[in-house]
């Protein structure tokens, strides 16, 4: 193993040099498993920078196929793999960059029925998905399993990122949004458009936050309890302080043991759209 390890130290020397990082963080990264849900505009840069940094295992969940109209923002794919599964395409790009990373792909949509099984084996989860339903499913599974969730989103010229369920006080997505937005108020990249560098910036930041958490960086302040908002048209960033974990939250509050992700009626939840009390 000496040869392998010395090769790795040279490969990662530029980050091992950092006083806050060092050999200890590199060894930690090599042991960690990170799951990327969604191999699109956010998942592509996140996967590449996590692989570059030397994460031990990278899981990629996606059931979509590469389309040419994805390529303006999904820079981990290529024209020649159009029509092929995105998770396979991204795995190939990741392995070409760093063959020492273990890549596991799941060619399924994440649902309330497979979420716990898929997520359970990982240390950290990245929400790189593109719809409200999956975001609640990912959140609820991570809350149930107490997995830190690095949640990114992008649309138009705007991006957002925060970390959920990463500490006792840290809220989950449901703590902040106990009710989903009305479907007509929800934009998607396919329907509303998005400029490529917007998910690029947010995906890179998701990789950064994941590295800080996975490598246990001293002096780092991950985006726990903070929402970073990016306005790409004006190139402005704002940070907002979020509420703490809610004791009333059905998935991470005081009665969360009553919650069953498999039995929960997500269809009604996403369709109901009742306003919450202010």
């Amino acid at each position, binding site marked *: 193993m000496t040869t392998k390890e010395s090769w790795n130290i040279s490969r990662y020397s530029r980050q091992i040099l950092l006083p806050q990082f060092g050999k200890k963080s590199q060894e930690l990264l090599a042991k960690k498993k990170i799951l990327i849900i969604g191999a699109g505009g956010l998942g592509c840069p996140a996967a590449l920078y996590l692989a570059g940094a030397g994460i031990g295992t990278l899981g990629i969940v996606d059931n979509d196929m590469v389309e040419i109209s994805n390529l303006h923002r999904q820079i981990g794919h290529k024209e020649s793999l159009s029509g092929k599964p995105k998770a396979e395409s991204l795995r190939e790009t990741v392995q070409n960059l760093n063959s020492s990373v273990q890549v596991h792909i799941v060619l399924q949509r994440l649902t309330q029925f497979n979420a716990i099984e898929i997520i359970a084996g990982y240390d950290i989860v990245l929400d790189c998905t593109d719809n409200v339903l999956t975001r609640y499913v990912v959140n609820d599974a991570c809350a149930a399993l107490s997995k830190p969730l690095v949640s990114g989103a992008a*649309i138009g010229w705007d991006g957002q990122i925060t970390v959920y369920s990463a500490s006792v006080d840290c809220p989950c997505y449901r703590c*902040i949004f106990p*009710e989903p937005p009305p479907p007509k108020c929800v*934009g*998607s990249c396919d329907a509303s458009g998005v400029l490529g560098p917007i998910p690029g910036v947010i995906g890179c930041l998701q990789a950064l936050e994941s590295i800080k958490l996975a490598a246990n960086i001293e002096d780092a302040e991950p985006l726990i309890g903070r929402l970073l908002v990016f306005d790409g048209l004006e190139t402005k960033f*704002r940070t907002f*302080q979020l509420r703490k974990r809610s004791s009333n939250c059905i998935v991470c509050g005081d009665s969360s043991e009553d919650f069953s992700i498999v039995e929960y009626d997500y269809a009604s939840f996403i369709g109901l759209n009742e*306003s919450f*009390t202010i």
Partner: protein
Amino acid sequence: MPQVELQFGGGLESLTGGNKVVPANFSGEQVVLGRVIDWIRTCLIKEKHEYFVQGEHIRPGILVLINDVDWELEGKTSYVIQEGDRITFISTLHGG
């Protein structure tokens, strides 16, 4: 007559004619945030009100911040606004 800065983001600026920042004055001594929201709904927003409110309440999926802090920590609609406050309304995004 506290003057406040209203900020709209994450797409909500489309409700205010593309203005991300709207200054506003309110007469009276104890102006609560609920009154500000009511003014936004009835006077500032001209159409598609359902993107901002549902009945009496802010619609789900909008985060309200008082001087960059989640309004849950500040009393929500009963918060008494202060001169120079920044009140931010951000729609949460779901694309990727």
